[in-house]
């Protein structure tokens, strides 16, 4: 895949590069430092899956809602979630986005309407649908974006949620990142061969689109169209993208050697790595773009380094805070 770089495309391509490189750098820095043992919670990294969240970052507005899953770092960042607060949360610090109560799997940033992530497969799907119901009741044009994986499609709550969104024509954008594996179980033992998730969901009465991860610009068009349809009141839309996580399901290692997937498959996906293809398109001709890329990288590298410094330097929460916040107090509801 080669992307044509010209005056009309360059800004968008650089923006995409910015988000993809930023997500990759954050995830890889977590991976690099994870064995230090200071991030004492499970992490589910999105390395290899940066393209969809990056497109999302450029398509959605700040006021729109989003919810995500255990593999939620990329979505949090793409929605504009505060990087320092996320890294601090993973380090269990009081400056974390959930004050150390949630960890990597419970990310939130209310400043950008990133409403939460869940450690239970499928759990955040109806929450996203409920947010869409609230937009409808309040008469705003906010849409609600629900990130899910191929495994969540096997949960009953997924069908319940899609059905209700369809019945009420709610402004929900379901974004399914199909990375072929639910932990170590591949799609063939979980869903019938040859059945398309998107087509199955379409049969429930909502619009759908399907995109391959390696064509970023085509996928960007799909998402733009879907967002605009949902926002204009045409009801929910289901987007499915094929993608691939490079590292193990949970943790920082590569795990192609343990036997549930092959090194060949992994290498195939590395060859079509969207970030690398985009970078090589951008650097093909002209040192001007190369300079721009270097400056983006430099900026992100130092931002990420600073975020880890911030997390490391932040204090842990007081022990007594473990017992606080079980119930919300009266005034908090207003």
């Amino acid at each position: 895949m080669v992307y044509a770089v010209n005056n009309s495309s360059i800004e968008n391509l650089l923006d995409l590069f910015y988000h993809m490189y930023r997500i990759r750098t954050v995830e890889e820095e977590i991976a690099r430092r994870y064995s230090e043992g200071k991030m004492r919670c499970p992490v589910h990294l999105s390395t290899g899956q940066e393209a969809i969240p990056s497109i999302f970052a450029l398509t959605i507005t700040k006021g729109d809602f989003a919810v995500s899953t255990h593999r939620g770092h990329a979505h949090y960042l793409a929605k504009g979630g505060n990087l320092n607060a996320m890294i601090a949360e993973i380090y269990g610090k009081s400056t974390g986005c959930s004050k150390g109560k949630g960890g990597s799997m419970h990310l939130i940033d209310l400043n950008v309407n990133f409403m939460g992530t869940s450690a239970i497969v499928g759990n955040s799907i109806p929450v996203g649908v409920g947010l869409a119901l609230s937009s409808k009741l309040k008469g705003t044009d906010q849409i609600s974006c629900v990130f899910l994986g191929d495994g969540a499609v096997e949960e009953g709550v997924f069908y319940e949620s899609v059905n209700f969104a369809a019945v009420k024509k709610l402004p929900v954008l379901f974004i399914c990142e199909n990375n072929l594996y639910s932990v170590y179980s591949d799609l063939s033992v979980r869903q019938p061969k040859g059945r398309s998730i998107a087509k199955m969901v379409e049969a429930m009465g909502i619009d759908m689109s399907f995109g391959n991860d390696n064509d970023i610009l085509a996928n960007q068009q799909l998402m733009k169209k879907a967002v605009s349809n949902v926002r204009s009141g045409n009801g929910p839309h289901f987007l499915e993208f094929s993608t691939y996580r490079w590292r193990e399901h949970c943790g920082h290692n590569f795990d192609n050697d343990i036997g549930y997937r092959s090194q060949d498959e992994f290498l195939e996906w590395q060859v079509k790595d969207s970030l690398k293809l985009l970078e090589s398109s951008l650097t093909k001709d002209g040192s001007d773009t190369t300079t721009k890329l270097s400056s983006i990288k430099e900026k992100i590298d130092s931002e990420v380094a600073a975020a880890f410094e911030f997390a490391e330097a932040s204090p842990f929460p007081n022990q007594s805070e473990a017992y606080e916040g079980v119930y919300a107090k009266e005034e908090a509801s207003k």
Partner: protein
Amino acid sequence: MSQMNYAEAINEALHEAMQLDSSVICYGLGVTDPKAVFGTTLNLEKQFGPERVFDMPTSENAMTGVAIGAALNGIKSVMTHQRIDFFLLAMDQLVNGAAKWHYMFGSQNSVPITIRLIIGRGWGQGPTHSQNLHAWFAHIPGLKVVMPTTPEDAKGMLLASIFDPNPVIFLEHRWLHNSMGEVPDGDIRVPLGKAKIVKPGKDITLVAMSYMVIEALYASDYLEKQGVSCEIIDLRTIKPLDWEAVMGSVSKTGRLLTLDSGFSTGSVAGEIIARVSMEKFSVLKSAPARLAMPDVPEPTSPSLTKGFYIRAADVAEKIMDMMGRDPSQVRKELKEPKPHDIPGKWFKGPF
């Protein structure tokens, strides 16, 4: 102040809440159907419109999540299920989601939802239409569990639940829906977490909830004639439980019998005995006791439910025994009502 039954009091609370606050919505399977969930949701759709009052797909789990999501943007949902048993399909959303949201996201937002569930017993409801699972919910940090007994409390506690910033499990005993009482007009709120002494007494503390309070009152009337004075505490809220009220009463009477409409093992009644034994051991004049349902699913046939429920006679017999009195006459005078499996002649089934 008006005379009305428990179901009408619920209905009045819903009208009041929806009138007071346009962010209150009400949904559940059957809330707009002609039977209106035992009459509790009558006329709501007519008055507040189909946007705020609606029937729903048979999707208990997702619809609980929908309430959570809507709550995160300021909508206060009152969801209703005709039986608690149906709601078991929603444990993921309730336990992993609603109950923990405020805590696990660092207290930044909360989930003000109210889930009305109907519990009960009798008339062939059988193993999966009669469970009283309040102890389950009470076990989960972050939930409030409310079990009002009287029409006044039903109204006041439903209003308090709807405007509480936390998820509240609101349990209505089917046998109470037709019970009558005086109910104040307007926005009356009965605070959650406060028990009520429904009858003061000096010999023994009787702690009960929901329909078990009614059995306690029958037993107490009988015992009064035998010269035994019972103090009856209606817990009203199971979580957070009003320990002050319980401990205060036991300190005074020195005896404790707890009643529970749920299964014995892991019951709220057992929890109360544990805490009282640990904290008030020195004031106890006799071993505390518990009467709860056996650890057996409720059977369906009326012949199998004879003698199966905790009735006033069981309570009175136990108390006579605890007081060192002869309990042998109790059952002759306090007979199991006939038929034994309905709350009164008003109940004609089928559910």
